[in-house]
């Protein structure tokens, strides 16, 4: 497959891996956080940890939209779905995430409510036009990558003057989450060891590489933006190791085939037209982060499900033993969770990180379970 196979080439992988082994200095440990769940997934799907020396540790970041959504917001969606006039639609991963009392949208659907899985928000618009007597609510989640498509449908709904379409926005922002991670008590105490970031791929195609400049400057953490293909990830690891060895600290772009410094200006303008910053938004694991999420602007209030249905913010009930929050902060490994593998599995998820394929727990369980001990040794903080 053109433009894909080139980035999954086994010979090139071995060449970069041997370069990494040569350049990673034995006395040094390299703790690198891949922010994105897309990277976590690629790392495990292609078996990248097998190719790295023991002193290169990958720490899994919070860049999995399903994982960071607090249970309270999911409970609000569950309430929406239970309204008889509502067709609630969302992306597939979201359906299986357990809310309070382990009620997921899948379970709510089995109760007889109308919950639909979508591949594109445009389908929600089609549903609204086909079901004029129903209220179609798009339960929108995701980082900067999925925000522009939501903005497009809100704009289209406004142009069409649709009265039965709204968006329950849970769009969140990557740089805000990176700041939050670097400001946790664990970051202050040194419990969180992050020497550098593998920066997001798709998010960066939208926002560009400029928004990451602050991380080398303010926190002394280098960032290498990387594509989601396995060779991209390996190359980014090598670039980070080189920066750390050279004492350099900057934003570098491995994903030049898609990411520019200013990103996709058209998409950004559209998002800016439809959305505005929330003062604060609750993140699972990271708590309330100021200016870290988006809501519809007042001009589009008619399409804001929170306003249309006068939704009240809910406090979700977390499973107390679930370590998703610490895993999302990068201070615990999925294996440290007492629920991992028993009883929490992808078929019976107790926490959100076990649901999405981008979640660290699901990646560990599905791809890495066979070498339990090895992964634990490789990836647990020294």
């Amino acid at each position, binding site marked *: *497959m053109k433009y*894909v196979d080139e980035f*999954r*080439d*086994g010979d090139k*992988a*071995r060449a970069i*891996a041997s370069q990494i082994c040569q350049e990673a200095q034995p006395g040094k440990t390299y703790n690198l956080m891949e922010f994105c769940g897309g990277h976590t997934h690629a790392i*495990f*799907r*292609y*078996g*990248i*940890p*097998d*190719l790295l020396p023991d002193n290169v540790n990958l720490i899994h970041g919070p860049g999995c939209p399903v994982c960071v959504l607090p249970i309270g917001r999911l409970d609000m969606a569950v309430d929406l779905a239970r309204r008889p006039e509502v067709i609630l639609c969302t992306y597939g991963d979201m359906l*299986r995430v357990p809310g309070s009392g382990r009620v997921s949208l899948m379970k709510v659907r089995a109760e007889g409510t109308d919950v639909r899985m*979508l*591949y*594109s928000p445009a*389908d929600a618009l089609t549903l609204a036009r086909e079901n004029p007597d129903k209220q179609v609510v798009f339960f929108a989640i995701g980082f900067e990558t999925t925000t522009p498509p939501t903005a497009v449908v809100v704009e289209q709904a406004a142009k069409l003057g649709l009265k039965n379409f709204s968006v329950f926005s849970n769009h969140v922002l990557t740089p805000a989450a990176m700041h939050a991670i670097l400001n946790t008590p664990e970051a202050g105490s040194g419990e969180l060891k992050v020497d550098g970031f593998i920066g997001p791929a798709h998010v960066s195609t939208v926002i560009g590489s400029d928004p990451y400049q602050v991380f080398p400057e303010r926190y002394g953490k280098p960032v290498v933006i990387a594509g989601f293909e*396995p060779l991209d990830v390996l190359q980014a690891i090598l670039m980070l190791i080189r920066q750390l060895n050279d004492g350099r600290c900057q934003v570098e772009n491995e994903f030049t085939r898609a990411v520019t410094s200013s990103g996709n200006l058209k998409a950004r303008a559209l998002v800016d037209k439809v959305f505005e910053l929330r003062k604060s938004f609750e993140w699972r694991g990271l708590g309330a982060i100021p200016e870290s999420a988006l809501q519809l602007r007042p001009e589009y209030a008619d399409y804001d499900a929170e306003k249309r249905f006068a939704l009240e913010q809910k406090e979700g009930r977390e499973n107390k033993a679930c370590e998703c929050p610490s895993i999302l902060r990068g201070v615990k490994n999925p294996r440290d969770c007492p629920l991992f593998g028993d009883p929490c599995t*992808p*078929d019976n998820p107790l926490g959100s990180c076990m649901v999405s*394929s981008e979640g660290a727990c*699901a990646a560990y*369980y*599905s*791809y*890495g*379970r*066979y070498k339990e001990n090895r992964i634990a040794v490789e990836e647990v903080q020294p």
Partner: protein
Amino acid sequence: MSNLNIARGRVEMVHGSGGRAMSDLIQQLFAGAFDNQWLAQGNDQARFDLPPGQVVMATDSHVVSPLFFPGGDIGSLSVHGTINDVVMSGARPCFLSAGFILEEGFPLADLKRIVDSMAAASKEAGVPIVTGDTKVVERGKGDGVFINTTGVGVVPEGLVLSGDQARPGDAILVSGHIGDHGVCILSLRESLGFESEIQSDSQSLHTLVSAMVAEVPDIRCLRDPTRGGLANTLNELAHQSAVGMQLFEKDIPVRAQVRAACEFLGLDPLYVANEGKLIAICPQSEAERLLAVMRAHPQGQDAAIIGRVVEDEHRFVQMETAFGGNRMVDWLNGEQLPRIC
């Protein structure tokens, strides 16, 4: 008897009531198409003799959506699916039954197309449909048509194929490209809106199987990787035989179009359904011979040895990726795609 208006008519509740209208439907739509001496007995059951050997039986219900797709339809699929389940024992398939659940309002023309396609598939395989049943449910209580088929077959003397017989050291083979059926169905779902030229691989594998077991009677087990795809079927076999498996990604045949579609949709071809492929596990010493037999058959031209059985108390299926790492190939999680077959 009144003539059905097949071109414009629709299924009505009365067609399932047991009365004259039902008899008309059966006579004009089913009996002619399936025509065989056992069905012609006209009883509530078919009476038949079987050749000597152990009898196997399998049943499968078909709810695929959409009903018609490139490479087949629910009718041919319901014949192929059950024949394949029967023949994975090494058996010769002998007879089929067919049960229809029809939704009120379903066009008779579509039903005729489906029935004719079933009849053609059954004739092509030489496995007659000898008994059947028809029920009608109210509009909105079904989705056009659901079909259950049951098959019986007879296993030749001396063959004992079973999913619990894989042994460490055995070779794992697949009969061709994986994922065609699932991607074909996916491409037709209205919410996806992408076009592909992939045809379903729906086909009866009985001649391929009979060639394989004739040449290599030591085959440990055969299974068709339908829902859940190659990955799920191998996990089932690993579990049943209490072994592990090691696959080699570079050896697993996947069409470029299927890979591209999976890439696009975030799916893994290992988990995508097939309806005309089989997995074979045999002693390593027989692997090349079995591969040659498979490749000599039109349904096995693209067959490949894709891995080997290993000892593993955890019964894990693992894969060396084309990239050079190793990873687990887990059971299918959740629902990848509903109503695929």
